[in-house]
C-alpha cells in the first residue's frame, strides 16, 4: 500500500476508505506521524488491517495503533469491534498469548535509597522468577487449584491463597477475572502446558524491569498513580504462557473447520472466526476468559515474588509494594460503546478508559485508567492516563508498546548479545538474561521511538502522558 492510498484525517490519522477493496465492510484507520507511518506501509501490516475490516459484523472502522506492525491474520496493534448477532469473535484477533499484558508496581524507595542494592535486587529477581518451564517451577498446580485460577483469576489467588491484597484486585482490569471463564473448555493439552507455569515470565519479549520515574508530565495523574520523581518501579510483562497458546491453537483449528458451516469466507485463514453467539463462539469465549484469568494470576504470582524479594533484600513491607495497574493487551471483551454491546478485539493494544468510567477504581476516576507503553530495555517506558470517553477513538483503546521495526533475526545479526549486554551495563542498566541471542533479538534499535509513539497517542487523544520511566535493570525471559 502507498501513502497516496490513504486519506489524512487530522494530524495523526490516515484512513483506507471502504472503497479501497471490494470486500471491506468498514474503513481502516491508523494513527501515526510522518516517521511512524512509512514502516506500517512496508510488509503486510496495512493489508492485514484491511483484512480485519472484512470480518462479518465489524462496526464503525478498524484501527491501527501507532505501534502497529505486521503480524499474522490481525496486525499487532490492531483494534476492531463486532456487533452480535452477526458479529464474529476471532481467536486470531486476540492472539496466541491470551491476555499478554503488563502490571506496574511501585516501591517505597527512590533510586538514591535503592543505592548500591540495585544489582543484587535484579539478580535476586532473576533467581526467584522462572523464565521457562523446566527450571525452578514456581508452583505446579493441582487440577482443583488450576480450576480455581481459570474460573476466578487473580482475585482467586488473593482470596484463596493469600497471594496479594485487595488493592491488587481493584487495580486490575476487569478486577482480574473475566466472567464466564470455563475450565471445561480448556483442553488437557493446554492444562498440561500451563500447569507449572504460574509465576513465570516465559521467553521472547517478556520481561521484568526495574525502573525509576525519570520525569513527570502530569502532576495530578502521577500523584494519583503514586509516581513521584525518582521513585523505583517494577514492570511485569508476560501472559498466559503455554496454556493460552494452546487454547488459541485449539480454537483456531476448531473455527477454521467450521467456517463453511457458518458460510464464512475469509482473506486469511488465521482470521478464522465464528459468530459470537454460535456454539464455537461461546466455547471460545469461555476458554479465552479462562486463559485470561490464568494470565492475570500469573502476573499476580510474579508480583508476590517481587514483594518477597523486596522484603528480604530491601526491607520493604509487602503491602508497601503497590500495584499501579494491570492491563491486558491481547483480549476480546464484550463492552458497551455508543449504546451498543460490542465484541472488542485488542491484538497488541490495551484498554484505555477515560475519567469517570464506572469500571475504574475510585482513586483513578478523576485521572482515567493507567495505560502503559513499554519501550525497549535500553530506552524508556511511558505511563499515560486514558483520556477517551467511552465510544470515542478506537473503542477507548491505546497502543501496547513501541512496536518492532526490525525482525528478531535481523536484530541478532546486527549486534552480538554479549556486546549489547556490555553496552547496557555501561549505561548502568543491570541485565539478567540466560541467552545472549535472546538479548540481541530485543535490542533497543529493533523498536520504534517510544517517545514519538507516546506523543502520537496523546495527539490523537487516546491517552495523555503522565510519567516517563527509565530502565535500571531487566530480567529477560
Amino acid at each position: 500500500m502507498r501513502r497516496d492510498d490513504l486519506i489524512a484525517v487530522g494530524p495523526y490519522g490516515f484512513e483506507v476508505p471502504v472503497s479501497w477493496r471490494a470486500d471491506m465492510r468498514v474503513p481502516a484507520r491508523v494513527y501515526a506521524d510522518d516517521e511512524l507511518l512509512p514502516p506500517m506501509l512496508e510488509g503486510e501490516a496495512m493489508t492485514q488491517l484491511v483484512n480485519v475490516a472484512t470480518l462479518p459484523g465489524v462496526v464503525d472502522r478498524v484501527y491501527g495503533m501507532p505501534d502497529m506492525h505486521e503480524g499474522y491474520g490481525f496486525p499487532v496493534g490492531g483494534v476492531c469491534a463486532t456487533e452480535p448477532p452477526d458479529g464474529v469473535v476471532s481467536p486470531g484477533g486476540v492472539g496466541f498469548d491470551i491476555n499478554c499484558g503488563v502490571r506496574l508496581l511501585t516501591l517505597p524507595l527512590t533510586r538514591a535509597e535503592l543505592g548500591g542494592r540495585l544489582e543484587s535486587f535484579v539478580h535476586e529477581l532473576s533467581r526467584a522468577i522462572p523464565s521457562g518451564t523446566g527450571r525452578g517451577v514456581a508452583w505446579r498446580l493441582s487440577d482443583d487449584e488450576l480450576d480455581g485460577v481459570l474460573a476466578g483469576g487473580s482475585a482467586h489467588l488473593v482470596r484463596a491463597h493469600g497471594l496479594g491484597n485487595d488493592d491488587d484486585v481493584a487495580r486490575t482490569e476487569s478486577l482480574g477475572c473475566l466472567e464466564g471463564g470455563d475450565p471445561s473448555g480448556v483442553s488437557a493439552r493446554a492444562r498440561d502446558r500451563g500447569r507449572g507455569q504460574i509465576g513465570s515470565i516465559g521467553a521472547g519479549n517478556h520481561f521484568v524491569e526495574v525502573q525509576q520515574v525519570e520525569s513527570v508530565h502530569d502532576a495530578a495523574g502521577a500523584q494519583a498513580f503514586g509516581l513521584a520523581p525518582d521513585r523505583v518501579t517494577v514492570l511485569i510483562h508476560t501472559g498466559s504462557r503455554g496454556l493460552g497458546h494452546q487454547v488459541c491453537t485449539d480454537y483456531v483449528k476448531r473455527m477454521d473447520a467450521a467456517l463453511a458451516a457458518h458460510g464464512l469466507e475469509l482473506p486469511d485463514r488465521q482470521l478464522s472466526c465464528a459468530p459470537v453467539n454460535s456454539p464455537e463462539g461461546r466455547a471460545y469465549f469461555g476458554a479465552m476468559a479462562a486463559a485470561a484469568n490464568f494470565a492475570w494470576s500469573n502476573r499476580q504470582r510474579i508480583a508476590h515474588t517481587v514483594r518477597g524479594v523486596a522484603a528480604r533484600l530491601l526491607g520493604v513491607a509487602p503491602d508497601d509494594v503497590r500495584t499501579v495497574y494491570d492491563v491486558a493487551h491481547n483480549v476480546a471483551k464484550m463492552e458497551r460503546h455508543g449504546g451498543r454491546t460490542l465484541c472488542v478485539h485488542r491484538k497488541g493494544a490495551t484498554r484505555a478508559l477515560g475519567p469517570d468510567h464506572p469500571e475504574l477504581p475510585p482513586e483513578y476516576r478523576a485521572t482515567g485508567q493507567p495505560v502503559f507503553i513499554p519501550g525497549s530495555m535500553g530506552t524508556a517506558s511511558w505511563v499515560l492516563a486514558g483520556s477517551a470517553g467511552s465510544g470515542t477513538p478506537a473503542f477507548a483503546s491505546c497502543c501496547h508498546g513501541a512496536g518492532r521495526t526490525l525482525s528478531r533475526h535481523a536484530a541478532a545479526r546486527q549486534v552480538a548479545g554479549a556486546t549489547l549486554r556490555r553496552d547496557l551495563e555501561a549505561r548502568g542498566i543491570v541485565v539478567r538474561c540466560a541467552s545472549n541471542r535472546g538479548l540481541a533479538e530485543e535490542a533497543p534499535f529493533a523498536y520504534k521511538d517510544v517517545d514519538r509513539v507516546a506523543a502520537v497517542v496523546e495527539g490523537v487523544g487516546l491517552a495523555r502522558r503522565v510519567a516517563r520511566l527509565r530502565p535500571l535493570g531487566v530480567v529477560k525471559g
Partner: protein
Amino acid sequence: MGAATRTLPHVGEWKVEVRAASRDEAFAEVARLIAAEAGRAAGEPGPWEPVGLDARDGVTLLVDWANELIGRGEASGRAYDEVRALAIGDAGPGLRLAAEVRGRAVPDWRSPIKAATYHGASLERRGGRWRARLLFDI
C-alpha cells in the same frame, strides 16, 4: 541431498522455509527445527510415541503437525527431534498422518515458539523437491 531450512523476513514472528527431497522429509525437518528451539536436551531418548492426525489438505496437516509437536513438547518437557514410520495418505476427502516420535528431556526449556499459524503456510512440490513454509508465533 538433505533437508535445508532458512529464515524468511518477518518483523515480528519467525517465518521459515524448509526444502526437502520428499514430503515426509519436510515434515521430519519441521520436527527437528521445533525441537532445536527448545534448548539443550539431556539423557536418553524417551519411548516412541504414536502421533495420528487428520486434516483436509496438506497445508492444514503441516500446521497441525507443527502444533502437535509444539504442544506435546512443552507439556512433556521433551524435544521431539526423532521421527520414524511417518506415513501420509489419503483418508476420505482429506489426508491422514501417522508417525512415531521420540525426544529427550530438556531440563531448561527455552523455546520461544508459541504456535504455528495458517498465515502464509504452504506446502508444494517444486523442481522435484518439496517446499514448506510456516510462520511461528514467537
